[in-house]
């Protein structure tokens, strides 16, 4: 039975937005938490730590996100874990986001002038205090615009979770299309909904960047 695209179909797509947002939020929070340690590892003075985190970033930046999701989803099953698409998507995106955020934040940490580290060290602050009170507060200000910008990538990236069977916006679009056979209409609406999520963030990122540039001038 072929249904035509109507109000109910639209509502179904709209309600799938919440899963896209939820998955984005979890991946962002997880990615940020792990990413902080990746960034600290990348800027560490201990060489093995630096090499390990560099390798981590290279692997996740150098392979497609879709492969990473496959590997988490099917890999967990192979290893004997019963993993549902929710958990697989959240874990895969968290790992991926942590690599990208780690690399973005590495740059921000290194953008804090050398003299700040030296002044803190000369006052007797050790690494944890130096990071917490001197370096990271300054790095955070630099990091906000590119981090918001990355959030846009992340939201769009969640669409790949559709392929491992997680019902977010893109998967909802596929389901509606299978029932209505109106791909152009359905996927236009899906794209528009993504745009409505991402566009404000892009604007915000650009605004923050301008404000930061004005302040540091």
């Amino acid at each position, binding site marked *: 039975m072929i249904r035509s695209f109507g109000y109910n179909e639209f509502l179904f797509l709209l309600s799938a937005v919440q899963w896209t947002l939820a998955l984005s939020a979890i991946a962002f929070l997880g990615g940020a938490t792990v990413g902080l340690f990746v960034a600290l590892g990348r800027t560490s003075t201990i060489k093995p730590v630096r090499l390990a985190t560099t390798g981590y970033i290279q692997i996740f930046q150098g392979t497609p996100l879709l492969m990473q999701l496959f590997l988490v989803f099917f890999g967990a099953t192979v290893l004997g874990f019963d993993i549902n698409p929710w958990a697989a998507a959240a874990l895969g995106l968290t790992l991926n986001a942590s690599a990208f955020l780690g690399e973005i934040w590495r740059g921000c940490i290194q953008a804090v*002038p050398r*003299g*700040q580290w*030296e*002044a*803190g*060290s*000369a*006052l*007797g*602050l*050790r690494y944890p*205090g130096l990071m917490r*009170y*001197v370096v990271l*507060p*300054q790095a955070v*200000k630099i990091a906000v615009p590119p981090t918001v910008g990355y959030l846009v990538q992340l939201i769009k990236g969640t669409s790949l979770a559709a392929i491992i069977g997680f019902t977010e916006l893109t998967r909802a679009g596929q389901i509606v299309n299978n029932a209505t056979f109106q791909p152009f209409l359905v996927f236009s609406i899906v794209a528009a909904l993504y745009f409505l999520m991402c566009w404000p963030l892009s604007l915000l990122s650009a605004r923050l960047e301008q404000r930061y540039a004005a302040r540091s001038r």
Partner: protein
Amino acid sequence: MALADDLKGTTVPRPMEKDVIIRMEGVQKWYDSFQVLKNIDLDVHRGERIVICGPSGSGKSTLIRCINQLERHQEGRITVNGVELGAHHRQLDVVRREVGMVFQQFNLFPHLTVLQNCMLAPLKVRGLPKAEAKAIAMKYLERVRIPEQADKYPGQLSGGQQQRVAIARALCMNPQVMLFDEPTSALDPEMVKEVLDTMISLAEDGMTMLCVTHEMGFAKSVAHRVIFMDRGEIVEQNTPEEFFTNPRSERTRTFLGQILSH
């Protein structure tokens, strides 16, 4: 220097006189294959004020940065206040607490107010309660005559004011030695005096000071000893009177000719 000559080629540490606060023995440092410090021997006595001068790249900044280990030396021994700087963090922590440093570029923390800049180390390194850290910070901000700026951010101050805050920030740790790394070189000319005056008043209080500076007027009036470095070596050291009127080495004469002629 008879003392320095005695030391050459020996590895046995000499007995330390009680008033020696910093001792460098045979200190060597390389950046890759380039040697920046060559066999540096130096004793600094408690209350002594030393000015280190020399052409750029002579290793004078590196020398004082080795004392609090912002730069690591590869060979030789550095002892500060009875603690020998080794590989271990604990010695480094002890030494850094007792040695204050003032930088050419001030290096104030831009995200903290002047008061917070001064309170940070007493709070987080010494572990003092907040009220006490604040009282100490205000005391030293008054000492450098800038207490009214306590709630401003460094970016709102002039260069001279920032450098005086940097001096106050270092003093808040109640250090036994102060290191100055070209403290007036980044300042506009009209601001040099206020910083030098602050340093002179510190000197009058008996602070042990090592200053890398090209302010020869300051050296003449404040230093007990002037050290001239060139190519990683201490070429000459003497009282300011002797140093300026009767330099012994050719390199010193050339250097003095260059900086005093303009």
